[in-house]
C-alpha cells in the first residue's frame, strides 16, 4: 500500500489534505507527551502561563518510551491509549497544536476540535514499539525531566509510519473500518 510523505511541523492547509485511512510517513520534528505532561500543560494554560515548549503546528506523540540502550537515541517507543488525553486535547489544539499520534478512539470533543482547527489524529501500531523506534533518529528531553518516561521529548523522525484516523472533515477510520467487517 502506498503512503503519503509529509514533513512535520505542518499547518492546517496540509492537515486538510489528509483523509481517514491515508497511510502517512512523517519526517521532521515531533513532540512527545502523555498523562502527566498533559496535566501540567493544561494547568499552565488555565493559569495563563507560557508553555515550556512551542507547540504551534506540532504533533504530540502519546508515548512513554522505554530507556535507550547505549548508542541508541531511544528505547522502544509505541503509542499509548489516546482517550486519557481527551480532556486536554481540544485546549491544546486551540493553543496551536496541529495534531496527535496515539492509538484508540477519541471523544467527540476531540473530533470536533480537529474539524474546527484543521487538525489530524493519527494512529501508530500499538505494540510495534521496537519497529517504530527504528524511524526515530534523535531524541532529547525538552521539558519535565522529573517525569521520567512521561517527560516531553523532542523527536527527530524519518518516515515514521502512521495512519489517519480522524481528519478535518470529521471522518473516523475506526467507525468506517469496523462497519465494513462487522457480521450479524
Amino acid at each position: 500500500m502506498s503512503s503519503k510523505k509529509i514533513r512535520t511541523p505542518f499547518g492546517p492547509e496540509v492537515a486538510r489534505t489528509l483523509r481517514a485511512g491515508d497511510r502517512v510517513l512523517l519526517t521532521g520534528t515531533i513532540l512527545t507527551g502523555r498523562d502527566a505532561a498533559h496535566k501540567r500543560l493544561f494547568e499552565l494554560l488555565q493559569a495563563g502561563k507560557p508553555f515550556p515548549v512551542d507547540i504551534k503546528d506540532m504533533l504530540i506523540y502519546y508515548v512513554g518510551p522505554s530507556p535507550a540502550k547505549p548508542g541508541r537515541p531511544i528505547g522502544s517507543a509505541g503509542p499509548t491509549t489516546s482517550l486519557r488525553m481527551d480532556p486536554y486535547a481540544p485546549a491544546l489544539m486551540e493553543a496551536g497544536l496541529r495534531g496527535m499520534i496515539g492509538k484508540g478512539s477519541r471523544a467527540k470533543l476531540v473530533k470536533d476540535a480537529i474539524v474546527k482547527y484543521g487538525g489530524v489524529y493519527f494512529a501508530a501500531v500499538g505494540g510495534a514499539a521496537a519497529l517504530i523506534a527504528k524511524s526515530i533518529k534523535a531524541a532529547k528531553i525538552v521539558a519535565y525531566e522529573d517525569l521520567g518516561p512521561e517527560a516531553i521529548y523532542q523527536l527527530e523522525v524519518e518516515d515514521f509510519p502512521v495512519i489517519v484516523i480522524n481528519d478535518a472533515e470529521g471522518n473516523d477510520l475506526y467507525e468506517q473500518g469496523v462497519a465494513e467487517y462487522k457480521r450479524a
Partner: protein
Amino acid sequence: MRVIEAGKVTEEVRRLCIEANYFLGEDMEKALREAADTEESPVGKDILGQIIENARIAREEQCPICQDTGTAVVFVELGQEVHITGGDFVTAINEGVRQGYKDGYLRKSMCHPFARKNTGDNTPAVIYTDIVPGDRLKLTVVAKGGGSENMSAVKMLTPAAGKKGVKDFVVKTVVEAGPNPCPPVVVGVGVGGTFEKTALLAKKALLREVGVHSPDPELAQMEAEVLEEINKSGVGPQGLGGRVTAMWVAIEMIPCHIASFPAAVNINCHVARHKEVVI
C-alpha cells in the same frame, strides 16, 4: 526440607522480567502468524505483518517488544517442603524486579495513584503465592501492559444469567474496548469464586498456552463460541476493521456461593508476555 537462597529468587525474577519483555512466546508467534493468514482486511494483514516483524526485531536486538513493559505480576507456587533462607521472600522478588527493569532497559511504569509520582524502579511487584505439595519453587513473571488492563472488567452476575450471561458479558467487554487494548487480544475469563477470586482466575487464564482449550469440554466449547462471537464484531487488528479481534479465549472456573455468579474478563494485548522457571 529443601533450602533455596533468597538471592536465587532475585536472580531468577531479574532474568524472567528481561526475557518476558524481549522474547515473545512461541505460542503467541504462532497465533500471530495464523491471524495474518486468516485476516481478510488488507490493512489488518499489513498490521499483523508489522507486529510479527516487531517481535523479530525485539528478539534479535534484545530490546522490549513494547515500550509498556508492564506491571510485574509474579505468580509463585511454593512447595511446602521449601525453606527460603538468606532474606525475606517478598523483598527478594521485588529486588529481582528492580534489577531486571534497570539492567534490561525496561520502562518503569509504577506510580503513586494520586500524586502519579513514579516509584522509579517498577516496584512493587504484584505477587500471588500458592503453597503447593513438593519441594520445588515455580516463579512466573507476567509483564502486564496497562492499556489492555484498563479495558478489563469484573461483574457480579445473577445465577439466572447462566452461561449466556457470561458469554454476553465477555463479548461486550472485548468489543466495546475496540482499538484501546491493542487487538488482536488474548482474553482471560474467570467464572465463580468470589468478587476478587474471579478476577484472579481471569488473570491466571492468561497464563495458559494460547491454542490450548480448557480440559473441561463444556468450557472448551464456550471458549470457541466466545472467540467466534468476538471475531464477528469487525473490530480487527488495532481496531481498524477486520476478522481477527481476538486470537484466543481461555476460561477458568471454580464453584461459587449459591447466591452469587461472579465473572471477570482480563484482556491481554497482542504482546501477551510471561516467562516461568521451576527451581
